């Protein structure tokens, strides 16, 4: 335990602010579950009656479930592909004397600072020029572009954070490149891999703009929600769906946290 610096004495003002900040962050989101139990079609106070029927209705909608399945597929594939590519790229950038490292890194991180609408539009142009039919694949391709920078940004510090001698030691002890990768590299960067998978999954799962331009008849969940937002009757069901997603991500994150106590999801934490 590190002794507390005198700079770190509790600061009452900041503590109050932190509470205020968290309240501000969470308050709006909490209305989603709240109104998902409301009897009325429209959101208004006071809530007159409580019901579970939207959840019941949700479960009967195959379209929602299909959209959910599509989103999980796209996000799952995107997470795996961008993380795998990210591992390779991050390893190359950190471990090898690659010519033009700076520009390459800049190029890879470029999509972080280009509005998604631009990518959506540009990719749509290319895809329609090549006459590639719009589908979940085109969405996934678009998502990989925006997820790769996240994956690499998450993985780079992991690679930088350990001594290259680890890999050399394994090679020295008789393992070829493939086994060095599995026996040493992967276990050491595993927290980074898990973080990258979670992050890229989330980014893709929630991405709307690119999916909007690049989606075909198979809808992802945000596209489905976008369609349903316009239909008054469908709206409470969307709220119920949102509540379930919220609940699911809470459970997932906390389970992940519990499982990976020792840093599985160390995204930015350096302690």
């Amino acid at each position, binding site marked *: 335990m590190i002794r507390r610096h005198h700079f770190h004495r509790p600061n009452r003002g900041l503590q109050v602010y932190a509470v205020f900040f968290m309240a501000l962050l969470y308050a709006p989101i909490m209305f989603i579950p709240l109104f998902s139990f409301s009897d009325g079609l429209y959101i208004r106070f006071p809530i007159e009656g409580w019901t579970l029927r939207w959840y019941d209705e949700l479960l009967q909608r195959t379209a929602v479930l299909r959209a959910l399945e599509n989103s999980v597929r796209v996000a799952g594939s995107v997470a795996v592909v961008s993380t795998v590519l990210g591992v390779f790229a991050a390893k190359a950038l950190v471990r090898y004397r690659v010519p033009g490292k700076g520009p390459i890194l800049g190029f890879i991180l470029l999509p972080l600072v280009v509005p998604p609408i631009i990518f959506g539009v540009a990719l749509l142009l290319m895809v329609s020029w090549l006459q590639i039919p719009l589908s979940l694949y085109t969405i996934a391709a678009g998502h990989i572009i925006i997820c790769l920078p996240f994956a690499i940004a998450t993985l780079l510090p992991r690679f930088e954070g350990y*001594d290259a*001698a680890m890999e050399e030691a394994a*090679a020295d002890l008789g393992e070829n490149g493939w086994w060095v990768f599995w026996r040493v590299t992967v276990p050491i960067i595993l927290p980074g891999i898990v973080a990258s998978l979670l992050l890229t999954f989330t980014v893709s799962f929630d991405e709307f703009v690119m999916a909007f331009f690049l989606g075909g008849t198979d809808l992802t969940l945000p596209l489905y929600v976008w369609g349903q937002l316009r239909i008054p009757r469908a709206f409470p069901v969307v709220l119920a769906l949102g509540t379930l997603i919220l609940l699911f991500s809470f459970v997932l994150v906390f389970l992940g946290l519990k499982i990976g106590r020792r840093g599985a999801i160390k995204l930015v934490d350096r302690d």
Partner: protein
Amino acid sequence: MNSAATMISIRNVTKRFGVFAAVQDACFDIRAGEFFSLLGASGSGKTTLLRILAGFEAATEGEVHIDGAPMDAVPPHQRPVNMVFQNYAIFPHLNVRDNIGFGLRKLKLDKAERARRIDEMLELIKLPGFGDRASDQLSGGQRQRVALARALILRPKVLLLDEPLGALDKQLREQMQTELRALQRSVGITFVLVTHDQEEAMALSDRIAVMADGRVLQIDTPAGLYERPKTRRVASFVGSMNFLPGDLAVRACGQAAWQHGKADFIAIRPERITLHTDHPADQAGAGQPLPGRLTDRVYLGERVQYQVQLDGCAQHLAVSTPNTAPVVADPGTPVWLTWPAEAMIPLQDD
């Protein structure tokens, strides 16, 4: 050529990174069972040479043979050498036992044999019972031993050690030096050590190669290096040394003692110089005492180190005397220096 006696043969090895030559034309042999050191300051090319032996760097020119086999196309994982890394490179995700047994996978041993070998190594490095420790619960010295055990368990022909004691504090370092030397004798494997610490190299090695700017300057036994350095750089790198211009040394020693022909410099170890507070009587075989003035005195415990400025010139000489000698008075005192003729080492300009 007796191949049994030669374990590593380094033939005209040069390594360039771009235009920078890290190793230039290294050419020497290391004998089987020898404790060999590569000594040099940082940037001297010693680590690069070691990494060429391990296979992590490919030589730009020249070739390396280990135990008679050419290593040029052999990747690190197929070389009969193992390495102890500078910071030990202990795998953080494995415990001590799995770290030591890491290289055993390919041997496809059964569980019992594997456990036996690991236990044997734990015994050897005096860490029995530490097998289940997590790697981050080890002290520096323990990590060093685990790294050794991990490399030795594969019974390599050559063990490479990259500054293995650099991360340890002085006391532990001295203790580990003793242990390392004993270990090398007991396993009988060729050790190649890289170090910048000349004392460490002297204490451990059978032979030492002194390197600077990518070149091997001299290869000799510790005593040979200390007493018969071939160049000024070697002389100054191994132990401390006074350098005198040739003519001054001649004046000090007299023509009679001068048998070494023309030398640019004369090198004299500080401990070979005798310090007199009174003008000494002329001794046979020695030249005239050189008068000077004491400018500084550093008390080192077992020895006392003096700086003396010779009268009539800017030359300073370091003189080291055992602490048993009477302590000389304060700086400013006039003194006389003498040394035996055989203490003088003639050197050419590098």
